[in-house]
């Protein structure tokens, strides 16, 4: 507006303004507001909340409404916007991390006979890191800005930590693949890089659980103690199975077998722990029992159990081993998708948020407060005041 008073104003402008006042300042029509940069393809249906079904009308009070109110059954927190590439990454990243780690152990303690296994682990780790990066970038709303992930380091954000871990692990693994087999100082650099990547492999397999737990999604937050252990043991089982599916020598099989078996047992045990953590509040545990996520979760548990059972059964036939490893891989993948979709379903259910917090899974879990935000006791039944 101040521009028009400056030198840009012509005599005609001034005359017109004086005469009829109709020449509106074009600056008024410029879209410069904070939200005007939002890209819109289709204004109709642009807002996802409108598609949601209203579960009950307030005038038709339901019997349980008094103890468990909600705003027309609408979600209290936002559903994750992530797509299929995230649960896939949860699997791939875990496999890459666990494989790199086994590679380091084989290199350091396995002697020359296990050198080939170490190298194969290094390759699996590198390929996993590369695929992970592609999957993560594919999920971004603005993929061309993926480098912004490395713009800052924010210790409070598991995603920031994870980006650095993945970048570090990918870079070091690549260096290892390129240099580790060379003689002289280049080999030393390559082997150190591979060792660094292997150490980063452990947080790479585990941080993804922190990434999920560090959210307001009720079921993810409620399982914040068991989920990291589950993801890490599942990664071990999946990496062991994948390496066993790849061609390998009989003496290498003797290393791979205990690795994948330990992982499979740990995965089953920690899987039970995850379900138990969620089961503290019935509404929170719901997605693991019903719907798509419930079916996926059950499938994953059955596949993992069958994979372990088939593996320990006597018999040396090739198909038996392949079937066991395929089942474990399917179980690990299904578990990631189950946890992912359970989170989506959990965020959609306002009672998962409300009842979880009423039963002590909110700030009370860390802060020990006994009062809710309205100054009354957290737990129902609340004193009826009217």
């Amino acid at each position, binding site marked *: 507006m101040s521009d028009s008073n400056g030198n840009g104003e012509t005599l005609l402008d001034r005359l017109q303004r004086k005469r009829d006042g109709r020449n509106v300042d074009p600056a008024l029509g410029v879209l410069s507001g904070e939200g*005007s940069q939002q890209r819109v393809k289709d204004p109709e249906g642009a807002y*996802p909340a*409108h598609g949601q079904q209203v579960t009950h009308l307030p005038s038709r009070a339901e019997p349980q409404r008094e103890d468990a109110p909600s705003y027309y059954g609408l979600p209290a927190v936002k559903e994750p916007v992530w797509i299929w590439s995230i649960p896939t990454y949860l699997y791939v990243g875990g496999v890459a991390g666990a494989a790199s780690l086994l590679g380091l152990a084989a290199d350091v303690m396995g002697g020359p006979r296990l050198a080939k296994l170490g190298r194969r682990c290094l390759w699996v780790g590198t390929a996993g890191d590369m695929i992970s990066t592609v999957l993560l970038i594919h*999920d971004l709303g603005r993929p061309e800005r993926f480098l*912004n992930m490395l713009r800052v380091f924010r210790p*409070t954000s598991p995603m920031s930590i994870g980006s650095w871990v993945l970048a570090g692990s990918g870079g070091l693994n690549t260096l290892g693949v390129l240099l580790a087999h060379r003689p002289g100082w280049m080999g030393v650099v390559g082997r150190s890089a591979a060792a660094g990547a292997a150490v980063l492999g452990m947080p790479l397999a*585990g941080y993804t659980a922190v*990434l999920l737990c560090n959210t307001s999604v009720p079921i993810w937050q409620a399982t914040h103690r068991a989920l990291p252990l589950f993801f890490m043991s599942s990664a071990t089982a999946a990496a062991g199975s994948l390496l066993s599916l790849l061609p390998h020598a009989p003496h290498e099989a003797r290393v791979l077998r205990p690795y994948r078996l330990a992982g499979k047992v740990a995965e089953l045990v920690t899987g039970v722990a995850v379900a138990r953590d969620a089961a503290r509040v019935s509404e929170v545990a719901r997605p693991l029992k019903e719907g798509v996520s419930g079916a996926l979760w059950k499938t994953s548990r059955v596949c993992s159990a069958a994979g372990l059972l088939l593996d320990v059964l006597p018999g040396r036939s090739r198909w038996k081993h392949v079937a066991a490893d395929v089942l474990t891989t399917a179980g690990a993948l299904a578990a990631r998708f189950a946890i992912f979709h359970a989170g989506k379903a959990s965020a959609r259910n306002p009672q998962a948020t409300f009842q979880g917090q009423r039963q002590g899974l909110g700030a009370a879990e860390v802060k020990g407060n006994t009062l*809710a*935000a309205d100054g009354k006791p957290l737990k129902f039944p609340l004193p009826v005041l009217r």
Partner: protein
Amino acid sequence: MGQKGFFTDTTLCIGCKACEVACKQWNQLPDDGFHFTGMSYDNTGALGASTWRHVAFVERPVPLTGLTKGGIDFSWLMMSDVCKHCQRAGCLEACPTGAIIRTEFDTVYVQPDVCNGCGYCVVGCPFGVISRREEDGRAWKCTLCYDRLGEGMTPACAKACPTESIAFGDLDDLHARAENRVRKLHEQGMTDAYLYGKDAENQPGTGGLNAFFLLVDKPEVYSLPPDPVVPTMKGKRTWGMVALGALGMAAMAVGSVLLGREARS
């Protein structure tokens, strides 16, 4: 500068939605489409990427406490919801790019030119405020009219509110004002009135909200969580479990190599 915020007194809200309109207009936010929810006078639904103020309409089959005249067994609760600009903001602590910052007015602001749309803030918010617009690919939320504040102006919603249900100002002034209001309401018999998220004592999980509310029913009735927590507060425990898991993974890797090696000899 100083700490700025909103005090939204829901007992004064008449549900005119002037705040929604003013916000849309000032920030030139895109259309949400003309939809009919069929549930109440609320056809907006919830806060989102292009809805930074949302008026909730709660229809209750009970009278307001302290209401003695008229004998109506019915009451409306209306609340203009907005981003809370938490003292410990879940979105800010989750943002991996540094796109979300705390401004000189102690508000939380998303820089659209930095955001890469990772979607982590969307699940980081304990109130379900911030959201990503699918076509746009970036996260958006209330800026507390950062552009207006810079010019010493009142945010558009507070400016447009005809009943001063939305009060804008320095946080200390707002706290005093809110406490006075609660005292007055209690004297008048509306003993249900309380402040939601005034400070860290009231809401330890968020450290207090810069945009806090005066409510007269349970928070859930307004779609507000009863005991919200910034997820990062539980981060230490989770990372501890990762450390434990790392030990386990290392033990499994080393153990199987040793086992496999010994079996050979």
